[in-house]
């Protein structure tokens, strides 16, 4: 088998557009005994009123609390009796769902997904229990330094009028104040077939998988579904570039640094991804890992990451350090960001990272879920179904100037928001 034989591409992915706008993609993986179902639709937190922050998320989670056809126990027994699972989760732009089953149970998985998605009844008893579970999780998160640093960074980077200011999970206050009818209303208005993507990967014939999905979801209509929303970059600079969050009883501080990065569809996204790899990914967490962890021994983890979703997600740098070393670690990170934006990476660095990107692709296709995720991304971001087949060529077409330009477009060391959560009582 050659590497190219195993890459999902236009001529081995079956793609169908249903009359109601749903796009179904199926890819046969005969090497396994199981099947993965992955899907998304435009009903994320972007579609909720910020005063009801968390509504999309609670609605998505509550889809599995009961339907017209199945009560809570029947819904979960149908899956669990067969070793299958299915979960819904809201992000900012989309609600995603993912499930897996033995290949023999694909029709069951599709049927339960369709039932939960289209016929939820939001039973009060179960939704209230779910709300209680969510509140417990949110309370716990308030004492998680990594979570608090990440939230503080986003809240400073994006103003309160921007969708990325908020966590899709909501807050203790907003979740506690949601009314039960809010969920049914949100579902009725926002859940619909327009823009929905369904991917099936596993030990089933692709045509059969497409037929199953078409039969289940093909009749779905929702005339009230709003147009697909987009998110622009924030039009104001952060009011403050530093946030310090006191979390009692901790021995380590978490640092989250961020600045607005490119959307996945941006022309320079791939160049920015390569620049990010040089900065905080390649080898032992890139240049940041080399400086902060390997040379100075300040942290167990210190890395950078590019969001790269449907809008201007942040370009983030994260590190966990002893409270005494916070400022030293931040200064070291800033130096590496400065270096990346002021000088060309070496030819060797570029070649290494290009080789890393192209070589790792087969590893991302090891499992049904990995394959489904790649196919979903190609469709969701309009990359074309031959994107993976052309990926090596695209990566090799990027030069050192492209990396420098992308880094300079988005990164400015002194303009990054810095949030620190830990036992320190006073900020810098």
């Amino acid at each position, binding site marked *: 088998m050659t*590497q190219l034989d195993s890459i999902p591409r236009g001529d081995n992915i079956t793609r169908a557009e249903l009359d109601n706008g749903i796009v179904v993609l199926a890819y046969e993986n005969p090497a396994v005994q199981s099947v993965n179902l992955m899907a998304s639709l435009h009903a994320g937190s972007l579609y909720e009123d910020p005063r009801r922050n968390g509504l999309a998320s609670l609605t998505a989670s509550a889809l599995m609390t009961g339907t017209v056809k199945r009560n809570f126990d029947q819904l979960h027994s149908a899956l669990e009796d067969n070793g299958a699972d299915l979960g819904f989760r809201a992000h900012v732009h989309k609600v995603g769902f993912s499930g897996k089953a033995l290949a023999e149970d694909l029709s069951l998985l599709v049927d339960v997904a369709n039932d939960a998605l289209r016929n939820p009844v939001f039973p009060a008893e179960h939704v209230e229990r779910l709300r209680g579970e969510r509140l417990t999780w949110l309370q716990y998160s308030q004492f998680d330094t990594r979570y608090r640093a990440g939230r503080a960074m986003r809240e400073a980077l994006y103003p309160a009028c921007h969708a990325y200011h908020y966590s899709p999970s909501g807050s203790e206050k907003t979740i506690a104040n949601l009314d039960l009818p809010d969920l049914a209303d949100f579902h009725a208005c926002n859940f619909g077939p327009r823009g929905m993507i369904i991917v099936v990967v596993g030990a089933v014939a692709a045509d059969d998988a497409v037929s199953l999905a078409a039969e289940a979801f093909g009749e779905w209509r929702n005339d009230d579904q709003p147009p697909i929303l987009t998110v622009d970059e924030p039009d104001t600079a952060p009011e403050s570039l530093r946030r310090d969050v006191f979390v*009692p*009883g901790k021995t380590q501080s978490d640092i989250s640094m961020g600045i607005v990065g490119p959307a996945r569809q941006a022309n320079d996204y791939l160049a920015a991804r390569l620049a990010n790899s040089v900065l905080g990914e390649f080898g032992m967490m890139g240049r940041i890992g080399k400086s902060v962890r390997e040379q100075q021994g*300040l942290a167990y983890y210190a890395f950078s990451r590019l969001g790269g979703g449907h809008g201007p997600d942040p370009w983030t740098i994260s590190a966990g350090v002893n409270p005494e070393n916070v400022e030293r670690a931040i200064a070291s990170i800033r130096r590496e960001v400065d270096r990346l934006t002021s000088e060309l990476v070496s030819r060797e660095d570029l070649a290494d990272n290009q080789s890393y990107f192209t*070589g790792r692709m087969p590893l991302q296709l090891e499992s049904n879920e990995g394959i489904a995720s790649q196919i979903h991304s190609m469709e969701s971001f309009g990359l074309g179904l031959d994107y993976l087949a052309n990926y090596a060529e695209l990566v090799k077409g990027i030069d050192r100037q492209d990396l420098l330009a992308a880094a300079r477009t988005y990164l400015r060391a002194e303009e990054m928001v810095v949030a620190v959560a830990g036992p320190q009582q006073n900020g810098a």
Partner: protein
Amino acid sequence: MTPPTHHTLPNGLTVLLKEVHSAPVISWWLAYRVGSRNEPTGKTGISHWVEHMMFKGSPRFPAGTLDREIDRAGGQWNAFTSMDATKYFETLPADKVDIAMQAEADRMTNALFDPEETESERTVIISERQGAENQPTFWLQEELRAAAFRVHGYHHEIIGDEADLRTMTRDDLYAHYRGHYNPANAAAIAVGAFDSADMLAKIDELYGAIPAQPAPALFARPEPPQQGQRRVAIERPGKTAFCEICHRAPAATHPDWMKLKVLDAVLTGSSGASDNKTSRLYEALVKSEIAASVGASLTPTIDPYLYSIIVTLRDGRSPEAAEAALLREIERLQADGISESELKKARKQSRAAFAYSTESVTWQAYWLAQSFILGEVGWFDAYAERLMSVTADDVQDVARRYLLPVSRVVGYLHPTDAQGEPA
């Protein structure tokens, strides 16, 4: 599915090979029979620290060069230290596996343990421990282990005690490395797209020349039988309370271990196969609104370890209420056993979980490595069949023999405010 082949080189190195041609990828593992189980007081965390030092270079591959080499090849690599073992792996495109095989052969005997690198890594590891300490449940787990094991090495966390992390020396680490990293104490595992005869020849060429040494005498102290229930309580700032109940479980190769696995599927659901909302403990604890979630762990270990059930309490609910509800379910299981439909569900979940876990060559190789560590290379291959043979009577029997107050350790985590007062 093709079964793995099992070989032993003249120097004692165990070799396990499994051809899987679904993708042009190979996962290459080296597993050593040494973990936190084999660490005496004063040297806790040494196996994990040695694992870190294995990434700090050798004369042939100075620090940082393999990071670049493996990433340049498009591979991923990492290592894990557990209670029983230290495992290293690289998963790469099939035509690039040579670099991984060379790297592991080299660092089996030639790791440098440079003194400066050792000191730099000391602070990294202390940082790793402090990061874990930020999670309140880490403190509960650490206290529970210490209560459950007074003598055996399972009593301390894999990361080690901070006192030892501050005092161990480079020479301590190097002695641990030289004493445990040799062919007779290790297995090389490959799963993926290769020809077994060619792969074996390559392994022989790279690893056959490593001098044979006697297998090390591993430090291990058997835990005496527990003489009664033990209880611990932790107080940490936060808002969330936890209750964890542990019982001594048998070694993974003991016939009763698989029966407890089915018991766990009935109580909390088969992990990895579902989100377990139809399990008995979900019904008793989450549906009753005592808990926000309930989960369990039954780790396959060389020596008897623990079957642990951990409950995350809802706001305003007490660990005592969780303990009472949980013990009622255990008593019900002991008195009435399980139904045939519960057994059937556990079996189907097990078959599905097995199918999911064999989708990737990396996980297949992991389980082969773990089987070697357990001392039974066919352990994972026989897993599904053994689980299918468990009966409803078996489950009731192990519930009556293992889930007893005398072998129980109960832990509470009480949340406090910043001043240490009850939250």
